[in-house]
């Protein structure tokens, strides 16, 4: 480090590392206002989408044509308390539809990221640590996979069969794992060259033992922190797929399909397009605030060591 380690002998500086690195990253992120804002908003949305649909009697899918095109609270002249965010072209409550859409969005987002993390990091660690032709093979596969943009893959697979939550998740996971494999691989290669690995080899430990017991717990947490950001990315993809008609099929609400339908009514019922977008944007912003703060904290802690 260039500037701040002038005073004091070097070894003492390292010995002051009392807490585990991961906890420091979490605390460092927590200290940032951005993270806290994002966290609270996210929790609020999570609770809302989980609890409100259980307790409200309003339906998200039943069509009540007489109630169609009701504007949100305080806007226009026909609003009602029952539908605080208005209704759509078929009289369905916007708030309920948005919250259920959010449920599915979060579901797809989180499960996809977990899958990507497991598959991608698993293959990446293996490739990086074992090296040689395993490495080459896996890296070429990631290259090939990366050159097929998600959209094309999605359109090809989902465009013809009726998309379900499972197939959507599979398509998203297929397009997302290569990035994680790359990152995990370069981290594994870096870890492989570290002194402590050499020390363990001298004692007689084999590659697998070192990888699973020592290297992986060192490599995976920083990647996991940044994976939070990818939940948002997957949620956007899910919405895009919905918009193109390749997502969760109506009448089940999903952000993309709601917004796609709403284009026809843009001029007289603009809230049908805007409200879900706002929900999605807020959810994504909160996740992004948390994820970016974690990333920043991680860079700071790792950079300072």
């Amino acid at each position, binding site marked *: 480090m260039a*500037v701040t380690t002038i005073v004091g002998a070097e*070894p003492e500086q390292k010995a002051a590392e009392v807490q585990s690195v991961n906890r420091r990253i979490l605390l460092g992120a927590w200290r940032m206002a951005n993270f806290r804002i994002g966290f609270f908003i996210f929790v609020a949305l999570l609770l809302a989408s989980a609890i409100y649909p259980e307790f409200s009697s309003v339906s998200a899918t039943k069509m009540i044509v007489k109630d169609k095109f009701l504007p949100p609270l305080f806007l226009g002249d026909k609003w009602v308390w029952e539908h605080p965010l208005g209704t759509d072209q078929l009289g369905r409550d916007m708030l309920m539809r948005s919250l259920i859409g959010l449920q599915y969005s979060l579901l797809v987002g989180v499960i996809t990221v977990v899958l990507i993390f497991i598959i991608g990091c698993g293959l990446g660690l293996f490739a990086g640590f074992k090296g040689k032709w395993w490495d080459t093979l896996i890296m070429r596969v990631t290259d090939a996979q990366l050159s097929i943009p998600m959209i094309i893959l999605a359109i090809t697979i989902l465009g013809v069969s009726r998309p379900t939550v499972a197939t959507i998740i599979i398509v998203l996971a297929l397009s997302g794992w290569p990035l994680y494999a790359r990152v995990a691989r370069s981290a594994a290669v870096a870890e492989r060259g570290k002194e*402590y690995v050499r020390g363990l080899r001298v004692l*007689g430990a084999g590659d697998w033992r070192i990888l699973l017991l020592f290297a992986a717990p060192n490599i995976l947490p920083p990647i996991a922190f940044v994976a939070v950001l990818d939940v948002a990315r997957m949620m956007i993809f899910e919405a895009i797929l919905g918009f193109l008609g390749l997502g969760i099929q109506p009448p089940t609400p999903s952000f993309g399909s709601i917004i796609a339908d709403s284009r026809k009514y843009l001029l007289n019922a603009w809230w049908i397009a805007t409200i879900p977008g706002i929900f999605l944007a807020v959810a994504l912003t909160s996740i992004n605030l948390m994820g970016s703060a974690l990333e920043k904290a991680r860079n700071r802690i790792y950079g300072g060591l």
Partner: protein
Amino acid sequence: MDLSLILEVSDLTVGPVTPGSAPILDHISLRLNTSDIFGIYGESGAGKTILSRALANWLPESLEYRVGLIAFAGHDILKPGTQEVRTGRDIAYIGSKPQSSLDPTVPVGSQIAEKLHSVRPEWNRRECRERVMQLLSEVRIPSPRERYWDYPSKFSGGMMQRAMIVDAICAEPAVLIADNVTQPLDVTIAAQIVALLHDLCLRHRMATIYLSSSLPTLGQFGDRTAILHRGRFIEQQAFGELLAAPKMDYTRKAIASVPRMWSTADGPAVRRQAQGEMPLMQVQQVYRTYRARKRGTFNSYSNVQAVRGVTLDIMPRENFGIVGESGCGKSTLTRLLAWLEVPDQGSILLNGTSLGGLSRGDLIRKRNEFQLLLQDPYNALPPRTTVGRMIEESLLIRGKVPRVELRRRVIAAMAEVGLAPELYDQLPNALSTGERQRISIARALILDPKLLILDETLSALDQREQGRLIDLFSKLQEKNDLTYVFISHDLAMVRKVCTRIAVMYLGEMVEIADNRELFYDPQHPYTKALLSAAPTLEDKRFNPSDFLLEGEPPSPIDIPAGCSFASRCPKAFGRCRVETPDLIEHSPGRLVACHLLDSGEVKAAA
């Protein structure tokens, strides 16, 4: 000699920006005349770097000038907007990290010329370029016109430091501040740089302030020297007088702590020899070459010959030392001895068994007998693992052991190396360097080895810790009948500890001899150069100027025919460049690889 005052520092006090905090530099005063060379000694942490930065008006953002004045030729350099004095032009700085001092994406020469043009805009770009090339040859960088366009990564440490010297002096500064410039360099290269710097300062008539944490290096300049302790100058005298009659206790202690090689009777205990002993480890004609793909061609590879035909025997209960500078191949040899890598040719035998012929299972069992201790205790231990778990790992690798038994054996190993049993469940974060090394020793000892290889294990420690660990090693040697192999670049430590020493150069052994014989009567010219360059305060047995080497060792990719040392040897003659000398036992127990020792040649060369 021009004795006009060029730099005057009065009561300089520097401290952190936060109000009320203790100052780091406290009322420093000095007067520097043109052509003076002023030495400052300070241990790490005493404030040396901050002082050097303060003098160059280059404090980091966290520090500020509180009191005091720095006047360059009468002008206050700290006044904002001063045009008369500019850092880079009138006052130049050379630091201790040459490898990271320049932008890695721009050629070295271009950057120096860029700096020159920035601080002396009156010289046009072509003039700047010419001047830089001329200076590069003055600091003895070979092929300066080609190397001008090379990137920093292509420069070795010594070469880079020379380039940084050019960077500092190209604008013709009146004052030069050199902060610990030889610290990262090898002994023989450092000797060259110091001589070069001394010569340049005198020739260009630059007033120089030379800061170092090594008293012997300051001794090479010999002028007025100040001792910096806790931010204050506690003493200021000419170097010779300082050594003879130090005024302060701290100075006395600093002088005493410089390790002695020549004027001490200390040496390792004589080895207990048994009759008709077999060597514990035999290294036979071992070769190791790395293949690196040559950039810019399709399929050709360059061969880095790291270890070339090394043969040696390590006898039981011996402290065998292997010394050499960076690039000599000792790290590769260490890895081969520890069987972390397999030699391309040749074999290594432990207690008569060839390690190459063992199956995987047998190899793990055999590993019990020989273990390796690494240099950097912070990186050598797995992160986020408790002390106990680290030591247990050695046993767990070999199969399941009942918990109670495991704990007992680990605590026993900890006790043997002097670690308190309470540390079992703790993370090593709060432990000192010496204690961490003990963890490494414990996890090796628990396997009950016969041979311990120590790869620069003592280099990271200060004198006191080093002493303690050396005592521990002797104790363990007595108790467990251990043999040690020390790989090091620290000649003073090797002198104190090793019974027999091998000197390595460019992948080969050039001399192997007993401790006393090697130090007092070295035969190989490289050994003599090495010993003469080793920094000590005593009267040197070998005069450095007689044995000063030129340039750097040849690259291990392109090893010339004949003796690999011929390109730098002051005594090389015809045969040396054609025929590689063998390691021959010229007298009992002494092996040397040099043509000079063939009696006929000695007469011819004389």
